[in-house]
């Protein structure tokens, strides 16, 4: 087993942002590792395994540090119901995307990735403009379901950007920033479990997965999954109101750049 320091640091930084801004672990870290020279089968399943554990860990610590109130006993909290809806749509979407891959249904990847990049970029820009609004949004469940379905559709056709669309969708639907982050962290954990299962299914058909990066990515990601919810709790919500849309804009630009880089 080998621990690679710079991989630990990268995983730590991107998981810190993912657990505090609700996006970026897959969107940000994947192209960076490709640029360093790792190939998809060394990166994608490892990020899914790591995010499955760190997403659930982060969700638990968001609950522990009181950014959210999840419940497993009745009455189930509204936050838990929203998380289950987002996770459910995400699980279906990732399963569907694997079926598409399995049957080799080729979609124009560059076009759909550009579309998702522009979508995330626009959502980030709208998020920045919303900062000027003094009126606190009321919760709009139908709008949130629409955004969750849109994010699921994007993931289902293999375009990614699930975290940014769900995260910004929650904010547009009137959910408090700190709580939205907690919800999306836990939901992504469950979605990644299905992703891992899908990859294990693929590996049973002869695709070999390289686990060399797992200890390093897990180490950086896990430490961040504990620390990040604490930082979210301590810093005032107005900081997250600013950080989240700006980070979404950078993720949108990165998604569009990926089309031209890879």
């Amino acid at each position, binding site marked *: 087993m080998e621990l690679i320091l710079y991989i630990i640091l990268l995983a730590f930084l991107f998981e810190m942002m993912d657990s505090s801004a609700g996006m970026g672990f897959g969107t940000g870290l994947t192209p960076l590792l490709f640029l360093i020279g790792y190939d998809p089968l060394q990166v994608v399943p490892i990020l899914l395994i790591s995010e499955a554990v760190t997403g659930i860990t982060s969700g638990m610590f968001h609950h*522990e540090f009181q950014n*959210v109130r999840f419940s497993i006993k009745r009455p189930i*909290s509204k936050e838990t119901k*929203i998380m289950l809806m987002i996770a459910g749509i995400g699980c279906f979407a990732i399963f569907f995307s694997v079926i598409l891959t399995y049957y080799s249904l080729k979609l124009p990847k560059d076009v759909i990735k550009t579309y998702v990049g522009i979508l995330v970029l626009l959502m980030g820009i709208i998020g920045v403009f919303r900062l000027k609004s003094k009126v606190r949004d009321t919760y709009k469940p139908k709008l949130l379901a629409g955004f969750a379905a849109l994010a699921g559709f994007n993931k289902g056709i293999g375009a990614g950007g699930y975290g940014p669309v769900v995260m910004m969708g929650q904010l547009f639907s009137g959910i*408090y920033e700190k709580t939205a982050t907690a919800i999306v962290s836990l939901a992504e954990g469950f979605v990644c479990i299905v992703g891992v299962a899908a990859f294990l299914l693929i590996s049973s058909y002869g695709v070999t997965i390289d686990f*060399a990066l797992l*200890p390093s990515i*897990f180490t950086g990601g896990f*430490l961040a999954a*504990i620390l990040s919810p604490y930082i979210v709790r301590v810093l005032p919500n107005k900081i997250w109101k600013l950080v989240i849309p700006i980070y979404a804009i950078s993720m949108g630009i990165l998604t569009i750049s990926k089309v031209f880089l890879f």
Partner: protein
Amino acid sequence: MEEINSQTDVFQDEIGSIAKVLDSKMTAVERMKITKHNLKRISMAIIFYLITMLIFAALL
């Protein structure tokens, strides 16, 4: 902690109520305080991490 919990019970059905109450009733410095329960959970997470790394060391 109990005070915060009792305050959030008033509007338990509102999404994000617990975080909103923490933000409105406590300063950033007060929110930095870590309870014994928090430390217990962090310790459990570290034990989980160490066990996982031992499994990795054995398998990889």
